[in-house]
């Protein structure tokens, strides 16, 4: 635009461009203000707490704060031989303070995470330390129990000095940092978490595959039947979708039990003998069967909504050009349904990987997933930082899939019902 061209002005004498920009900005602010309440609410009550989980998972201040003097005096200790008297003295005074505050139990729990065997010797120390005399604390503490004279235990205490740690993440994949600072695997017979991760992936993967194999034909049927029939059949998909998860799990518990209908049926058709009924509950089979049925609607609905948009004339065209129905299906129809397959599989996989209720009820010991382990640490062992670490490891996996889903399907294309 040459400088001589007269700018278009609004009736107020302001250039149109400026006025338009102002209006645009106003609209932007207006739209944002509408979203702001929910966004703030979600950020404060949900996003920040997840950040809080991250802090908790690496936070190791508890011991640092419980034994301030000890760690200060340990700075000069090289960790080779037993620590000098001043460390013992500092430890004694820190410990006395903890007894006053009745927190020595917490200390023993915490130290026990680092090295087994602290619980009993701390109890013993609390009892004996009442009659301690002033001075020469090293001798007195070491005489309480021989483990107090073992340098390994003092090294274990020293390892808890930093306020932050990634130990919980290592523990989540069955590794740990040994005394020399090397990261190594735990002994093979104690690698419980890796088994759980693998099992979670395995179950989520196969549940997704089963769901896909079962959902594809019925989604196709629903999409090609005339409306009046397909609406009726759609109810069959939607009714389980709307029914309580616990109700559906309960019905599987009834069906799969040893005296249940499925076993009755197998006995009736002679598949198994009456005194040799199959155990289908409290193991992996239970998890597979129940989770597949529960997650099936989440596969059917995205597939259906994609198949609905595929014109039947395409298949006809494929056949008229000389393809057999199978070729026409494979070369024409199937590629068109791939967006639906992607959406359904990712959705089911995301949901399956974080499943908790159903595996806990029908999975037994061999069918439980990583979620159950998180709940166990939240409720039973109260090792919340470990639960947080495991949760975040699971979350990072889910977020990768979520990101993929967003890229492939678009988050605003999620369809419900």
């Amino acid at each position, binding site marked *: 635009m040459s400088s001589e061209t007269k700018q278009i002005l609004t009736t107020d004498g302001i250039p149109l461009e400026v006025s338009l920009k102002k209006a645009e900005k106003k609209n932007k602010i207006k739209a944002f203000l*509408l979203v702001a309440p*929910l966004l703030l609410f979600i950020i404060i009550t949900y*996003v920040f707490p997840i950040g809080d989980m991250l802090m908790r998972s690496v936070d190791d201040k508890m011991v640092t704060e419980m034994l301030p003097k000890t760690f200060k005096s340990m700075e000069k200790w090289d960790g080779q031989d037993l620590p000098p008297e001043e460390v013992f003295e500092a430890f004694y005074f820190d410990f006395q303070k903890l007894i006053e505050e009745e927190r020595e139990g917490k200390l023993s729990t915490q130290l026990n995470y680092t090295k087994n065997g602290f619980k009993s010797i701390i109890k013993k120390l609390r009892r004996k330390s009442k009659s301690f005399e002033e001075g020469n604390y090293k001798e007195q503490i070491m005489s309480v129990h021989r483990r107090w004279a073992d340098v390994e235990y003092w090294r274990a205490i020293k390892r808890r000095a930093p306020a932050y740690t990634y130990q919980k993440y290592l523990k989540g994949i069955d590794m740990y940092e040994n005394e020399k600072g090397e990261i190594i695997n735990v002994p093979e017979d104690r690698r419980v978490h890796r088994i759980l991760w693998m099992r979670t992936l395995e179950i989520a993967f196969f549940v997704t595959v089963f769901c896909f194999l079962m959902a594809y034909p019925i989604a196709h049927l629903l999409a090609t039947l005339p409306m009046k029939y397909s609406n009726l059949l759609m109810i069959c998909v939607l009714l389980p979708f709307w029914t309580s998860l616990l109700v559906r799990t309960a019905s599987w518990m009834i069906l799969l039990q040893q005296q249940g209908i499925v076993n009755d049926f197998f006995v009736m058709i002679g598949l198994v003998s009456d005194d040799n009924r199959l155990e289908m509950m409290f193991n992996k089979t239970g998890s597979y069967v129940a989770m597949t049925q529960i997650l099936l609607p989440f596969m059917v609905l995205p597939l259906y909504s994609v198949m609905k948009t595929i014109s039947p004339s395409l298949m006809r065209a494929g056949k008229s050009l000389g393809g057999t129905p199978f070729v026409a299906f494979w070369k024409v129809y199937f590629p068109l349904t791939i967006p639906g397959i992607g959406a359904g599989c990712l959705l089911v996989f995301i949901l399956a990987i974080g499943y908790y209720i159903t595996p806990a009820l029908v999975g037994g010991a061999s069918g439980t997933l990583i979620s159950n382990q998180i709940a166990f640490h939240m409720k039973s062992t109260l090792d919340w930082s470990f639960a947080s670490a495991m949760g975040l490891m699971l979350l990072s996996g889910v977020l990768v899939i979520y990101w993929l889903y967003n890229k492939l399907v678009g988050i605003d294309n999620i369809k419900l019902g």
Partner: protein
Amino acid sequence: MALPKYTEPHYRIWHYVYLTICAAVFFFLVAPLFVIFPLSFNAEEFLVFSDGMKRLDPDAFSLRWYQDMIYGTKNPWGLAAKNSFIIAIFATIGSVILGTVAALGLSSRHMPYKGLIMAVLISPMIVPLIISGVAIFFFMAKVGLAATHTGIVLAHIILGTPFVVITVTATLSGFDHSVTRAAASLGSDPVNTFMKITLPLILPGVISGGLFAFVTSFDEVVVVLFLAGLENTTIPIQMWTGLREQLSPTILAVATCLIILSTLILVTAELLRRRSERLRGINR
């Protein structure tokens, strides 16, 4: 879908195989729900079909588990039902208001960072419930709302809003914005326009989002397990406890009631969806 007359035999066979597979899958989907109905009328304490039931002997059926559900002294189903409804209703109201308002903003073409904000708002639906449960529990414990109704309602608002946002933005995608401009040009203020013009038009979407939020809250157990104290027990918690300890037929009576409730909700949601599609002129 009848086959044309000229279909070759092996495709005909394949077609019937396909129909059989479909029938089997539908059976797998729906049949488990129906096993609950008859067993909830079982006169005996066992969760198997008694011989009397197989013979359809009237004496083998009874309403005792329904009586136990309503009058039973050791079953706090009454308290649980009351809590569940109170929590679900307030959570629904909260989700619908916050979600609808946010959806209005998100559907505006002026909205900045739409994708990112949408991803954050939908995340409670995608993040595994166990993680949401842990995070929300930490938050509620910090602000002193653990083991309160308020805390659970807030938690369920978090979990319910994604559904409202999704359904309402979907409804708004077919919304003709010129009607609101027309209203504005006729002198209506934005609030009035929303109440009189926009809301009635997007109402089906709002209600179906509300139904999702209601069901989510009413059926939610993982987060509640972390948050609830004895006073805040809900139906899902009672069912969870019952299923873990011993499966009693009373649970099946409750389950039957829940299936009836979900059927009602499903029918409502379906009718609304069809009405909404008619209003938006989508012919399917």
